[in-house]
């Protein structure tokens, strides 16, 4: 019993001492992610909901075949800049119907498609410090899209390929898996639009894109 009391006293003295040793150091070095411009690469899977005239006149089916990869430089202020390339694909099949083309009447099963390879530069503004585990951001992006518009009438195709300007506005957040770690998840909701006028499309291709991604950062 006595031994136990002594042990308790010893511990009582020792534990606070130990705690004191873990107390803030005179100066702690900030994480390299806060001290340097760092790199960050993100791969994303995206679902795209058509909106506006693109939805009303051409395709209203949500697409899940959208991928992208981006590389960014996380600057020492709240901004990061980078580039993103992606692939997006919309497809919708319509039951057999009659279409008029000039004086001709065409009966066909229509398959409507749009595929795009957008290549964009973007700027992110981060609302919280770089090393917080949740890092919300807003994004502006602009670039060019290599696009292919093909409408199939049965097995006959009407195709148009073009490079057209594209832009986007988004909000998102990064989530670090581990404090000060290299890996994390990225969630982003973005309005994306490409101007393109041809056939069924009167203004362009616009969609609301929700993506989930994984990122890796290094310095």
């Amino acid at each position, binding site marked *: 019993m006595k031994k136990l009391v002594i042990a308790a006293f010893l511990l009582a003295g020792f534990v606070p001492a130990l705690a004191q040793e873990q107390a803030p150091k005179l100066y702690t070095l900030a994480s390299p992610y806060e001290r340097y411009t760092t790199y960050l690469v993100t791969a994303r899977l995206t679902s795209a909901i058509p909106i506006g005239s693109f939805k009303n006149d051409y395709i209203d089916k949500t697409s899940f075949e959208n*991928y992208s990869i981006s*590389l960014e430089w996380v600057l020492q202020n709240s901004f990061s800049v980078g*580039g993103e390339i992606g692939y997006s694909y919309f497809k919708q099949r319509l039951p057999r119907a009659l279409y008029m083309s000039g004086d*001709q009447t065409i009966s066909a099963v229509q398959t409507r498609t749009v595929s795009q390879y957008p290549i964009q530069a973007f700027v992110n503004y981060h609302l919280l410090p770089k090393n917080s585990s949740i890092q919300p951001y807003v994004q502006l992006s602009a670039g060019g899209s290599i696009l292919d518009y093909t409408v199939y009438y049965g097995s*006959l195709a009407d195709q148009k390929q073009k490079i057209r300007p594209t832009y986007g506005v988004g909000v998102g957040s990064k989530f670090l898996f581990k404090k000060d770690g290299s890996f994390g998840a990225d969630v982003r909701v973005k309005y994306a639009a490409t101007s393109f006028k041809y056939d069924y499309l009167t203004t362009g291709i616009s969609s609301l894109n929700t993506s989930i991604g994984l990122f890796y950062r290094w310095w």
Partner: protein
Amino acid sequence: MLKKASFLIIFAAIWLTSCTKDPINDLTDLDSQVFITNHDKSIDFKQFKTFSIADSVIVVQDERSGTALTDLDKQMLSSIISKMQSQGYTYVAASSKPDVDLTVARITNTYLNVTSTPYSSYYGGYYGGYGYGYPSYYSYYETSESYWSVSMLDLKNANATTKTLNVVWNAQIRGSGLANTDYFSQMMDSIFGQSTYLKIN
């Protein structure tokens, strides 16, 4: 580090662009078929009562043409005859001055296409070390299209001075399964169904 990242981007670009899609490979034969009709809007088809049909099918293959009467052709001709009869026309011999004459053609065109693929050396995701020295690379591919073409000639209002017959109606049947006789009655339903002006009964 930056170099590594750029390679990653380039590699991803190649990977992404190398995906090719065939959005219509899941179409059935019937769904792939396209029916295109055209007619002379100044003509009132109710003035026609009788028709004849050519006793063979015109076969057009690229620059050459001739006539044929295979089992397939016979089937096609008889499907057209019965469909015309159901529309109210009377089938008569060519010698008894029909109002309209129908001709059927089987057309096959083959095209040789050339395409330039300047980035072909990247196929296979090869980079680093030496690449291929081709400035650009040409490849050739052949496409062919086959279709049925049915035309209706106006014999009643033939222009005697210029000796011409007007085509007052034309239908093209394109797509897959064009030689499958099981589809013939559906093909007739389609081309006549979308040309309601042809019905005189």
